């Protein structure tokens, strides 16, 4: 039908024109393609929650080859740093106080003897809790190191089951590397801000230079403007996702264990949702300054605080936890972690995809409805 042909023709005209703007606008290109990669690298290294070389002290009360093997395992780990031996667990208090160590491993008397008998033997890990995230890191890493080398401490011929009990078992991230947790969060966080900004500016710019009035005088409909504006930025966004994931894989060894198409679907839906949010802002704001501020705030805060990027969603107060369901970054991060780390596909992540699709559809609908084709 001719109407449908015209519909797509006009979308194409808008999208092509927007693509020309983007091509000639170095700033936008940099913002869309270079920034995410640079930020992921910066954050990935700088804000890395991997506090490498965490200072650990050992209070060896057993003085046996087995207990020294435990200390040695800590010493040779790349993440921990053995800062010395303490005489007793009581000295730990002082070590913490002076800031010499953030963790003290106490190997109790009789450790080797219990091991030799094949009985469960405990070591005690004291952690300075003053910095919550450091404490968690110390716990995770010390446990990982001891767990991984537990077999070596056991006397030859000891029972099959590992004799040292390790409370936490970090299944998908056995080394406790936070890059694996952080990169998906960063990807979502950075893309959220950039996607919202891209479109928030795209329409506000037309208002400001007066071209919106000229556009309104053509038969181009609001759906055509909204979709046409979105398409070039969606392509940019997809390229940005690929670049960032490649950087994550290359620099931080982030694996890719799951289904590519599930990830692609999640990324496209997430991008449409965030680009749509930007459209809503610029339809309402009509001014690049206001659009920028509203865009940054409305994308940055929820994507950082309510997405599971910095804090686990489960730890949020109930009202915020319920609200976090409306934050696309939360679902995208879940999908990214699912595909990258757990090897998930459509079957496991259908809930996330559905949530992302619902958000995207709502944003586009609001943008199109609030986009009055009149000036008053």
């Amino acid at each position, binding site marked *: 039908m001719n109407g449908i042909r015209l519909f797509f023709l*006009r979308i194409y*005209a*808008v999208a*092509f024109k927007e693509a020309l703007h983007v091509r000639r606008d170095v700033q936008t290109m940099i913002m869309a393609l270079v920034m995410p990669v640079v930020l992921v690298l910066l954050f990935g290294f700088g804000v890395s929650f991997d506090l490498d070389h965490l200072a650990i002290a050992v209070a060896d009360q057993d003085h046996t080859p087995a207990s020294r093997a435990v200390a040695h395992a800590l010493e040779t780990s790349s993440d921990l740093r053995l800062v010395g031996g303490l005489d007793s667990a009581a000295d730990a208090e002082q070590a913490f106080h002076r800031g010499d160590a953030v963790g003290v491993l106490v190997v109790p008397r009789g450790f080797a003897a219990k091991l030799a008998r094949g009985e469960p033997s405990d070591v005690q890990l004291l952690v300075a809790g003053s910095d919550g995230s450091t404490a968690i890191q110390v716990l995770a890493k010390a446990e990982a190191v001891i767990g991984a080398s537990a077999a070596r401490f056991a006397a030859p011929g000891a029972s099959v089951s590992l004799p040292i009990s390790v409370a936490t078992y970090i299944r998908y991230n056995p080394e406790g590397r936070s890059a694996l947790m952080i990169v998906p969060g960063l990807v979502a966080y950075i893309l959220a801000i950039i996607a919202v900004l891209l479109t928030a500016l795209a329409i506000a710019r037309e208002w400001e230079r*007066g071209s919106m009035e000229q556009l309104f*005088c053509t*038969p181009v409909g609001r759906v055509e403007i909204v979709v046409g504006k979105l398409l070039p930025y969606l392509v940019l966004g997809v390229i940005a996702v690929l670049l960032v994931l490649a950087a994550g894989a290359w620099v931080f060894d982030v694996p890719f264990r799951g289904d590519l198409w599930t990830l692609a679907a999640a990324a496209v839906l997430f991008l449409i949702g965030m680009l749509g949010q930007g459209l809503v802002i610029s339809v309402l704001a009509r001014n690049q300054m206001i659009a920028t501020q509203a865009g940054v705030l409305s994308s940055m805060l929820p994507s950082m605080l309510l997405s599971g990027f910095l804090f686990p969603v489960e730890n949020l107060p109930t009202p915020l936890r319920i609200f976090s369901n409306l934050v696309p970054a939360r679902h995208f991060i879940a999908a990214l972690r699912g595909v990258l780390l757990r090897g998930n596909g459509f079957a496991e992540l259908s809930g996330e995809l559905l949530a992302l699709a619902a958000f995207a559809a709502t944003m586009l609908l609001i943008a199109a409805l609030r986009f009055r084709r009149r000036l008053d």
Partner: protein
Amino acid sequence: MTEHAIEVHGLSKHFGAFRAVDDVSFHVETGEIFGYLGANGAGKSTTIRMLCGLLGPTTGDATVAGHSVADDPLGVRRAIGYMSQKFSLYVDLTVEDNLAFFGGAYGLSGKHLRTRMDEVLTLVDLRDARTANTADLPGGIRQRVALANALLHAPRIVFLDEPTAGVDPASRRAFWRLIRRLANEGTTVFVTTHYMDEAEYCARIGLMVAGRLVALDTPSALKTLWVPGTMLAVHGAGLGPAARALDTLAGVHAVEPFGAGLHVRVGADLGDGAAVTRALLAAGASDVSVVVTEASLEDVFLAAVATPEGPAATAAGGAK
């Protein structure tokens, strides 16, 4: 389609308590150049936006190319071309890219689009500028490209909102040659301006003062009606202080500063200017020369702004 290209009935636009356009009625004949004149803020753009279906009228209605602007703004937009006051083109795109985009927006594509682009660029005599970056073009050329843009879909009516604002005089004349050519080919042109000299090119003129249409007619009829009598252009030295003397001279209707001299409008019995010269010399002016001149639309505008109630008031005032 109605007989007139545009028919306006009691059209008003209020912004809050402010009446930007206040109860305006007129019509525009098919194929004529209709000039809409007024100072900044008089309500010209607001009227045009309503006629293009971009702003809903507060009260009243208008029919443009047979479509009601209140009920069928989309029908209106399809039938007209519009050059808005602020925007001319996307300066980061080439001429060709601009035309191709707006052509696509109007639903043109492929060979038809290319043919139309050729035709409009030929019309505005800018075939060589196709691949030029719009940012590099001078204002006058840009406005011509913008006009070409507004004509791509071959509208029967075009609205041009201050198309020559900020453009040098030579380019303004070139632009008006284009407008006249369009009208000769049967396109109805609705054009706003605050340059009174340009208004002389219009078949008819509507004069807006503070949202109201205070006068509407051909340029010469407006002059006869608003500035009756004979217009004398006076030059000399010391005219400023001496001009006072003319206020008390019977038969003088109005005295306005004009350039370095004066425009003095007088009744028929003072038409030779001798009495005016004598009065000015007596009041201390020197080197006085007086020639009969034609009233300009500037004079009409000044009279209309001074007495928006109508020319009758001017005549009465001048006769006192």
